[in-house]
């Protein structure tokens, strides 16, 4: 694919973790295991052979159950994990909003964290100082900006994190369900900003469990199941498949429980 408008290209990415069962945490355990020859581990593929590409200005929703590999995929895209196989190609700068308070230090004030967070994302001090006022305005947390963030509520955390990540003006924004903690008004404000983002040709990868948000804001949705990409289509059909799968599973579980109850209650 030699399309110049493609900004994120994920090619056959596999992310495998070595799950060591009771990993030897200390030298003593290591020796003990070494001599008994029982270092046991298994490989776990959190993401298997996933490929897709995203164009400039697109907003992609990524959905799937807990443990389906959404966050791992985002982390591989953000460069936090090096993929076991395959590769990720990005064009432009990326700002990851992977988890609340990532890149923030609880003892520092909000203002100090703006700088630290920006530096961690690779921006210079000068760039951050220039944007500081705008970030503070958008976060709108009043005097709390000069309070150590360990005293913040999770909503305030999120306001600050979101406003730093979007104000630094990245080409690609990665959001991992952190919008869930904001109040309705701030969520509206966030989505308004995301919309502006897209109009100016930026790309957004958005993980959410709130289907209405995905349906309303995304151009496309990806459905992950057990680390595999099983559907890449418009949001509505993908959400339908996801819902029917969940519903099927739920009814299967309910039936099973009903069976058990009926067995128990037999005279």
């Amino acid at each position: 694919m030699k399309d110049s408008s493609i900004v994120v290209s994920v090619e056959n990415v596999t992310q495998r973790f070595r799950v060591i069962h009771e990993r030897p945490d200390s030298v003593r355990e290591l020796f003990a295991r070494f001599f008994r020859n029982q270092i046991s581990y298994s490989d776990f593929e959190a993401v298997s052979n996933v490929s897709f590409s995203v164009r400039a200005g697109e907003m992609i929703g990524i959905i799937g159950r807990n443990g389906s590999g959404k966050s791992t995929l985002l982390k591989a895209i953000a460069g936090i994990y090096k993929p076991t196989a395959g590769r990720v190609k990005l064009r432009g700068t990326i700002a990851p909003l992977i988890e609340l308070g990532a890149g923030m230090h609880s003892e520092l004030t909000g203002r100090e964290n703006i700088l630290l967070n920006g530096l961690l994302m690779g921006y210079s001090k000068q760039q951050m100082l220039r944007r500081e006022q705008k970030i503070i305005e958008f976060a709108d947390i009043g005097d709390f900006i000069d309070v150590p963030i360990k005293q913040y509520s999770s909503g305030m955390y999120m306001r600050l994190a979101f406003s730093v990540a979007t104000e630094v003006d990245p080409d690609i924004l990665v959001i991992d369900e952190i919008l869930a903690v904001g109040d309705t008004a701030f969520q509206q404000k966030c989505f308004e900003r995301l919309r502006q983002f897209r109009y100016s040709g930026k790309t957004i990868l958005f993980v959410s469990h709130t289907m209405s948000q995905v349906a309303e804001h995304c151009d496309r949705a990806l459905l992950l199941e057990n680390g595999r990409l099983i559907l890449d289509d418009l949001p509505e059909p993908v959400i339908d498949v996801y819902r029917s799968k969940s519903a099927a599973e739920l009814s299967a579980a309910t039936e099973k429980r009903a069976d058990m109850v009926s067995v128990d209650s037999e005279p």
Partner: protein
Amino acid sequence: MLELVRDTYRYRELIWALALKELKIRYKRSVLGFLWALLNPMLLMVVLTLVFSTVMPIKIPQGHYAIFLLSVLLPYTFFSQSLTYAAESIVGNGNLIKKVAVPKLVFPMAALVSNLINFLLSLIPLALITVAIGHPFHWTWVYLPVPLLALTVFTLGATFFFAVANVYYRDVAHILQILLQILFYVSPIIYSLDQIPMKYHWIFKLNPLIYFLNGFRLSVYYGLLPAAPSILASFVCALLALIVGFWIFRRHQQEFVFYV
């Protein structure tokens, strides 16, 4: 090695911010704040001078045991504190490493820089004490940046090594404390190499720290400059440590995220 220089330069502001953060947190909520960086060596000096000049006298040339001791104790503290902080630097910043794509070398670097700042601050009380107790203030103080540079490079190499090792085995932080204690006694810090019989000197010369400490003590206490072979040895050790340490660090840094 070029990568090390390039990344250090590129992320200098981040390293600086992290180092300041560390200092800020270290002295946070203490009434005296940064004054502790100055008070610590003074109090230590009082204790050690009492012990080693009255309780358990160690004979040294020219008197003024305090300066004799502090001239190498301060750089040794810089070395040992840097290692202690750096060993925890990757593990302690696990949350960051798991959530932000950030060059890992900034963490041990920041640990080193924060302790370097502390060391430089502690030179102020050293100078004050020198004047106060009437020890000559030698012109050779201007030579201090040279052994300091060598020691910093050496320490950086060692911090890289211990930062990596502690990611895989958390025992390393504890083993390090024991090693540092042993190193404190086998290095001529509370005593002088002159007090050791000549035939054992070769053993002491296997300890690389001796070459760095030598530079500090000669220039601050004796008002002399070290001989060329000693200076050369210090820089050879420093560069070797850095090359090996950074090589190991580079090889493993991509894996940190899976272990922290």
